[in-house]
C-alpha cells in the first residue's frame, strides 16, 4: 500500500481557495494543519485573534456563571432576600450598550468594505457609547449610595454591585481595546501582515464587544427580572 501525499494536496487546495484577509484562515481543524498555506513562511492568519477572543469569552462566561450560581443559591438560602428597585438610569445604560453594539457592527463592516473613514467614525461612536455606559453605571452606584444602599446592605445589593463592577471592569478592558484600535487607524500599515492584524483585531474586538452587550442583558435580567 503506497503512502499517498494526500495531506500536501489538501494544503495546496486550501492555498488556491483562500488568501487575503478573509481567506481560509488556517483554523487547523482539518487534517491539513493550520496557519501555513501561502508560501514558505509563518504567515499570520486573522483566525488567530478570532479563536483567541472566543477562548477568552469562554473563560469570562465561566466567571459569571460561578457568580450567577452563587446569586441563585444565595437567593434561596435565607429569608433576607429583598431585591433592589431597578434604578431608572440602568435603562439608559442598557440602551447605550445595545446601540454601541450596532455602531460597532457598522464600524466592522465599514472596515470589511475597506471604508477606513467609516471604520474610524463608527469606532469613535462605539467608544463614546461605551464610556457613556460606564458613566451611567457609576451614576446608578451614586444614586444607590445616596439612598444608603451599599455593598453590604443586603444580599441583593451585594450582587448588584459585584455584577456591575465585574462587568464594568471587562467593559473598561473593551474600551481600552477600542482605543487601541482607534490609535492604530492613524498608523498606516503597508505590510500584508500588518493589514491582516488590523482587520483581525477589529473583528475580534467586535465579537468581544457584542459579548459584553449580551452579558449585560443577561445580568440585567437576572438582577431585576428573575424570580
Amino acid at each position, binding site marked *: 500500500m503506497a503512502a499517498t501525499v494526500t495531506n500536501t494536496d489538501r494544503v495546496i487546495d486550501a492555498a488556491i481557495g483562500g488568501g487575503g484577509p478573509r481567506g481560509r484562515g488556517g483554523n487547523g481543524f482539518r487534517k491539513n494543519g493550520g496557519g501555513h498555506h501561502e508560501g514558505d513562511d509563518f504567515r499570520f492568519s486573522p483566525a488567530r485573534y478570532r479563536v483567541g477572543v472566543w477562548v477568552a469569552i469562554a473563560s469570562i462566561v465561566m466567571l459569571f456563571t*460561578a457568580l450567577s450560581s452563587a446569586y441563585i443559591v444565595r437567593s434561596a438560602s435565607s429569608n433576607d432576600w429583598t431585591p433592589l428597585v431597578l434604578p431608572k438610569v440602568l435603562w439608559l445604560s442598557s440602551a447605550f450598550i445595545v446601540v454601541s453594539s450596532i455602531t460597532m457592527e457598522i464600524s466592522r463592516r465599514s472596515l470589511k468594505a475597506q471604508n477606513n473613514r467609516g471604520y474610524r467614525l463608527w469606532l469613535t461612536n462605539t467608544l463614546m457609547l461605551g464610556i457613556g455606559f460606564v458613566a451611567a453605571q457609576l451614576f446608578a452606584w451614586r444614586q444607590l449610595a445616596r439612598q444608603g444602599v451599599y455593598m453590604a446592605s443586603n444580599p441583593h445589593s451585594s450582587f448588584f454591585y459585584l455584577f456591575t463592577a465585574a462587568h464594568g471592569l471587562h467593559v473598561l478592558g473593551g474600551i481600552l481595546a477600542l482605543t487601541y484600535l482607534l490609535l492604530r487607524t492613524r498608523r498606516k500599515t503597508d505590510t500584508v501582515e500588518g493589514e491582516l492584524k488590523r482587520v483581525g483585531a477589529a473583528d475580534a474586538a467586535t465579537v468581544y464587544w457584542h459579548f459584553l452587550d449580551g452579558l449585560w442583558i443577561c445580568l440585567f435580567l437576572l438582577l431585576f427580572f428573575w424570580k
Partner: protein
Amino acid sequence: MAEASHDVAHRHEPPKSFIRKYIFSLDHKVIGIQYILLALSAVIVGMLMSVLMRMNLSWPGTHWPIMGTLFPTGAPGGVMSAEFYLSLVTMHGTMMVFFVLTTAPQGGFGNYILPIQIGAEDMAFPFLNMMSFWVTFVGFLVLLLAIFAEGNATVGAWFTKLGESAWAGGSGTVGSIGGWTQYAPLSALGKVAGPGQGAGVTLWIISIAIFCVGSLLGALNFITTLLNMRTRGMSLMRMPLTCWAWFTTAVLALLSFPVLLGGGILLLLDRIAGTSFFIPGGEYVSGALIPNHAGGSPLLWQHLFWFFGHPEVYIAILPGMGATSHILSTFARKPIFGYRAMVFAIFAIGMLGFFVWGHHMFMSGMSPYSAVAFSILTLSIGVPSAIKTFNWIGTLWGAKIRFTTPMLFAIGFVSVFVAGGITGLVLGQTSLDFFFHDTYFVTAHFHLVMGVASIFGMFAATYFWFPKMFGRMMHEGMGKLHFWVTFVGVYAIFIPFHAMGMLGMPRRYSNFSEYEFLKNSHGLVLFVTVAAIVTVSIQLLFYFNFFWSMFKGKKATDNPWEATTLEWTIPSPPPHDNFAGVVPTVYHGPYEFSVPGAPRDFIMQTEPEGVEVTAGLGETSGNGGNGHKH
C-alpha cells in the same frame, strides 16, 4: 491584495538587550524556563515547610533554637505552636499545588515545547505569554508577603493599620492557617476566628486571584496556539501526546480557574466589605455574637472551590501523563500502544473531571442524593486512567528499553500513579468515606498522585528536554542516583500514610498525643520523617546536576535521544525563532519507532514519505481506520 515583498520568509530579529532577552522576553522558550525556575524556587519553600511539619509531628515539644530565632512569636522558645504548624500545612499546600504543580508542567514545559512540537515559531500571543509569567510571579511575591505579614511583627503591624479584622497581622504564623482549601466561615470571619486568619488569609486570596489571571492568560495562549498554528501536515491525530495533554490541561484551566476567581472575590468581600456570601447568621465566635452577617452558606464556598479544585488536580497530572507517554515510547523504541485510546482517555479524564467535585464534600452536609451521583461518576473516572495504565505497560511489551534517567522517571511515574490512583476506588465510595474522609488515607492518595507522580513527570521531562533547552546533557550518574533514592524514598514516605489512615488518624493535626486511638502510630510517624528527610536531601543532587550541567554538562547534539518529534529536528538550544524561518512539513505520526524496513529504528516526523509501512504481527493498528497514513 498587494503582496509586500519584504515580509515573505521574514525572520523576526531576536532581541538584543539583556532585559529583553532574559527578563521581559516574548520568547516562549525563555518564558518556559522562567516558569521552571519559579517552580524550582517554590518547591524548595514547600519542601522545607514539609520537613518542619514532619519534625513537629515526630518530636513535638522539642526546642529547635533556630526556629526560636527566626519565628519568635510562632515558635516561642523554639517550640512550634499549633497555629504555626497549621500555617505550614496551609502554605505548603498552596505553594505546591499552585506554584509548583500548576506552573512547571504546563507553563514551564508546555510553553517551551508545545510550539516547537507543532512546528510554530512561538505562541499565538507572545506578549500575553510574557504577561502570564510575570502576573504569576507577582502572585508568588504576594504569597511570600503573606508569610511576612503574619510572621513578622513590624510588617504585621503595618497591615493591621488597614483593618483590625481582615488585615490583622503579626500572629507569628507563616501565613494563614485555614488549609489550602480555606473553608468558610473560618476563612471569612477574619481575625476573630483565630491567629493567622487576618492578613494571612486576605493576602492569600489576593495572591491566588492574581494567580488565576496569570493562569487564564496562559490557557488562552495554549488553546489558540494549538488550534491555529500547527504546521503543514501536523493534523490533530499526528500531534505528540504531550500536546494533547497540554491542550486538555489548558481547557480545564480555562474553565475552572474563573470559578476559583469568583469564589475568591466573594470571600474577599465577606472579609473586607461586610457581605455575607459564606457567613450565616447567629455566629457566636470567640465569646461574642457576630452582628452584621446573615444568610450566607459555607457550603457555597466548598462548591465553588471544589468545582475548580477537582479539575485542578487533573491540570496537575495530565502534562505528566503526556510526558510519560512520550518518553516511554521514545526509550522503548516502540510506538505508543493505542494512540487513539490515549487521546480518548485524556479527553475523558478532562471532561469527567468537571463532574466529580462533590466527592470532596460527601460529609459536608450537602444532599446525600447528589453524593451518590458524585460517587458513581468518581469511580467512572478510574476507567480512562486504567486505560492509560494498560497502554503504558502495553508500550513496554515487546520493547527494546533504554534505561536513561528520563526513562527511569517515566517508568516510575506509571508505578506511583497506579499506587496513588488505585486508592481512589476506596475514597470515591460514600460508604467508605465515613471512615476515611479527612484522614491520612486521603493524604496518602493525593500525595502519591500529585506530590509524587506529577513530580516524576516533571523530573522525566527535565532530564529529557534539558539537552534541547541548554545544549548540554545532564549528568547520567547523578540522575540515576537521584532517581533511585527518590523512587524508594517517596514510597517509604507515602505508603505508611495509608496505615495511619487505617488507624483513623485525622488530617491537619499538629499533635497526635491527645488521643489513645493514635498511640500506635508513633513508629510510622518516625519512619516517615526519616524517609522524608533523606528524600528531600537527595533533591539537592538534582539541583546541583541541573545548574552545574547548564555550564559543564557534555555538549548535546540535536537529537541525543534519537527521538522523532519536531523539537529534535532543530539545534540544541534552538534559535530564537525555532525553525530558522523554514516551515517544517510533517509526514508521519509522532511515534514511528522500529518500523520494519526502515533504515534506522526511528522515523522523524519530518522525514519525507516513501517508506513502506506494513501492519505489525497480525494485530490491528490502533491508529485509525483508514489504513496506515502516518
